[in-house]
C-alpha cells in the first residue's frame, strides 16, 4: 500500500477495500465483522442488521437532495439491501463554526421527512462544532438498526448462472448531479440526484417473491463496480446488454462530453437486484408499481462464462469486457 492516505482510498473501489483489509480488519476482526453494507447480528432470539455511514458530500445541497436526506437514505438503503426493515437510527453531526442555523434547520427537516417516509425513528444524536475551516460546512454520520425478515437471505455470493440482473432505476444520476454542481464545467443540464430511501421499494419486491438472490446498493463506484463485486463474490460471469441499461438522456449527454461511463457513476436511489429468471418478472412488476422503481429494467444476466468478469454486448452486437473500476473517480459524493 502507498504510504499516505489518498483520495482514491475513499472512492469505494479496490483501494478502499485494500485500506479496510490492511488497517481496519487487522484490528477489528471478529466473527460478526463484515465487508457487506450491514452486519447481521443475533440479539436475544431475533436477528437484526446494523449499519453505519459517514456523509461529507460537497456541496451539502444539490438538485434532488441535501446531505441530510442523503444521510438517511444511505443507511436506510444499506439496511434494506439486507432485507432488513429499518427501525431506529442515530445521527452525529460535525458542524463548522459559522454554519447558518437556517441551513441546519433545513437539513434536519429533510432528515425528518425522509425518515418518516420509510417509518424509521431517529432516536439519539450527537452534536460537535469544529472551528472554522476544520470541516467543510457539515459532516453527518448515521447509524441504523433494522429487523431482518425471516426466510429472506440475500448476499453478493448468491448469484447463479441464469439469474437476471435488474436495476431499480436509471443509472448514474447522483454522481452526475454532484459533478455538475461541484466542478465549474459550464455545463447546464437538468439532472437531479436519484437520492431516495428505498425500504418500501425493497419491501414491494420481497412481498412479490422471496426468491431474490442479491440486492446491492449501487452507491460509490456505481453499477459497474457492484457487478464486478458480485461476479467475484459469487464466482460467476456477468453479461450486460449495453442497450438495455436505462440512462437519463441528459446524464448520457454529460458523460459523453466528459468521457465518463454512467455505469461507474454513483447512485443514491438505485439498486442492483439479481433474481432467478422465474421471479425476475415479479420483481420488475413490483418495482414498476413503486414510485422509485418506474425505470426499472433487466440489464443482463449471470453466466458461467469467464467467472469474475463483466462482459458487455455492445450496440453493434460484439462482446467486450466492461473495464474494471479503479482509482479516484470523484471524491466526496456522499
Amino acid at each position: 500500500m502507498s504510504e499516505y492516505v489518498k483520495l482514491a482510498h475513499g472512492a469505494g473501489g479496490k483501494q478502499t477495500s485494500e485500506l479496510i483489509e490492511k488497517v481496519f480488519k487487522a484490528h477489528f476482526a471478529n466473527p460478526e465483522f463484515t465487508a457487506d453494507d450491514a452486519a447481521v447480528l443475533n440479539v436475544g432470539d431475533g436477528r437484526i442488521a446494523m449499519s453505519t455511514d459517514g456523509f461529507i458530500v460537497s456541496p451539502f445541497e444539490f438538485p434532488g437532495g441535501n446531505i441530510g436526506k442523503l444521510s438517511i437514505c444511505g443507511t436506510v438503503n444499506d439496511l434494506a439491501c439486507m432485507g432488513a426493515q429499518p427501525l431506529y437510527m442515530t445521527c452525529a453531526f460535525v458542524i463548522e463554526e459559522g454554519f447558518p442555523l437556517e441551513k441546519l434547520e433545513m437539513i434536519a427537516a429533510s432528515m425528518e421527512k425522509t425518515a418518516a417516509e420509510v417509518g424509521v425513528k431517529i432516536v439519539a444524536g450527537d452534536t460537535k462544532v469544529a472551528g472554522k475551516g476544520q470541516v467543510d460546512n457539515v459532516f453527518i454520520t448515521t447509524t441504523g438498526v433494522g429487523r431482518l425478515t425471516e426466510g429472506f437471505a440475500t448476499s453478493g455470493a448468491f448469484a447463479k448462472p441464469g439469474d437476471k440482473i435488474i436495476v431499480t432505476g436509471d443509472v448514474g444520476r447522483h454522481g452526475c448531479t454532484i459533478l455538475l454542481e461541484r466542478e465549474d464545467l459550464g455545463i447546464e443540464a437538468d439532472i437531479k440526484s436519484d437520492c431516495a430511501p428505498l425500504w418500501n421499494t425493497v419491501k414491494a419486491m420481497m412481498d412479490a417473491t422471496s426468491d431474490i438472490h442479491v440486492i446491492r446498493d449501487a452507491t460509490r463506484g456505481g453499477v459497474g463496480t457492484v457487478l464486478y463485486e458480485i461476479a467475484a463474490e459469487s464466482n460467476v460471469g456477468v453479461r450486460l446488454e449495453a442497450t438495455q441499461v436505462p440512462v437519463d438522456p441528459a446524464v448520457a449527454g454529460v458523460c459523453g462530453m466528459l468521457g465518463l461511463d454512467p455505469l461507474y457513476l454513483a447512485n443514491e436511489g438505485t439498486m442492483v437486484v439479481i433474481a432467478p429468471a422465474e421471479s425476475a418478472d415479479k420483481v420488475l412488476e413490483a418495482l414498476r408499481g413503486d414510485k422509485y422503481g418506474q425505470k426499472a429494467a433487466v440489464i443482463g444476466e449471470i453466466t458461467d462464462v469467464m467467472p469474475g468478469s463483466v462482459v458487455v454486448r455492445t450496440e453493434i452486437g460484439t462482446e467486450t469486457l466492461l473495464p474494471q473500476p479503479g482509482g479516484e473517480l470523484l471524491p466526496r459524493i456522499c
Partner: protein
Amino acid sequence: MEEKKLTAREIIESYDGPKLRIMEVCGTHTHEIFRLGIRSLLPENVELISGPGCPVCVTPVGFIDMALQLALEKECVICTFGDLIRVPGSEMSLADARAKGAVVKIVYTATDALDYAKENPDKQVVFLSVGFETTTPGSCLAVKKAKEEGVQNFSILTANKTMPNAYQALKGSADAFLYPGHVNAITGEDDCRKLAEEGVSGVIAGFTAKELLTALAVTIRKCQQGEPFFVNCYPRVVTEKGNIPSKKIIEEIMEPCDSIWRGLGNISMSGLKLREEYAAFDAQRKFDIPETEGTPNPGCRCGEVLQGKCKPADCPLFGKVCTPLHPVGACMVSNEGSCSAYYQYQM
C-alpha cells in the same frame, strides 16, 4: 453486371488481401474501438495499432519533474487536467506530491485556472498546458486574457504538440492512419491532404460505431487500390479549413518548436511554445526551471508501444508492476492510453 453493395462491416469482415496495419492515432479512438469490441470484427490480416494520440501518454517524464519542482519547490498552485496527476515523474507523480502537501487542482479548461488565479491573487498559479490542437486554443485564450487583464500570478508550463510531423516520424509504423477527428475539427483537412501527397495515407475518422466502421472500411478499400490516399470520413464535423478562430489564436500566441515525445524522442517542429511577447506567462522562464530530461523507469516500453513496435503485453512490467492503479508508464495512466485500454479489456 452490377456489383453487390457491401456494408462497411461486410467489407471489413471479408477482407482477405495482404496484411494491413492501421494506426489509430487518437486516444478516444483507442478507447471507443475497445468499448465497441471492434477488434473482434477484424479479420486476421488487419491489425489495429494504437498510436501516440493520447496527450498524457506522450508527455515526457521531464515535464512532470518540472511540474513537481513548481509545485514543491516554488510552491505554485498547479492546475491540470485530471489524468496528468497520476503520471509518474522520475521519483513521484503529482498525486504523490499532493499527498505531501503540494496544491494540485483539477480543472477542465485553462481559463478555469486563470479564474482561480484571479480569485487568489496571493498565489502563483501554473496551468500544465499539454495536448494537441484540441486543447491548445484554450491555453492560448487563457494567456491572451491574462495579458489583457494584467494578471500577474498566472502562467503555463507548455508541452503542447502538433500532429503533422509526428505522422512523418511514424510513417513506417503503419500502412494507413485513422486521423483523430477532434484534432482535425480544429486543423481541417489541409495537413492530411498534404501528407497524402507525400505518400502518407489516412482517413479522418469520427467516434460512433458507424463512423469508425465506415472509416475502417474506406481505409481497407483504399489500401487495396494501392495509391496513397486521404478521405474525410467525418464530414459532419470536420470541414476543409477547420476551426479558423482556433487556428488563429494558436498562431497569435504560440510558435512551433522542437518537442520531446515520451518514447519517440525529439520530433522536429512538433511542439508549440509561447511567443516572445508572452514570455512573462511561460512558467519555465518565470520560475527559472531548467530543462529537465527525467529518468523513466528503464523497464517501461511505452515508447515502443506508442510506435506500434510492441504490444502492451510484450512489456515486462505490463499487468505486473504496472497497472491502472499503480501506473509505471504513462500509457497505463489515462483511460485512453493503449496500455490502460489493453489492461482493462484484457487483450
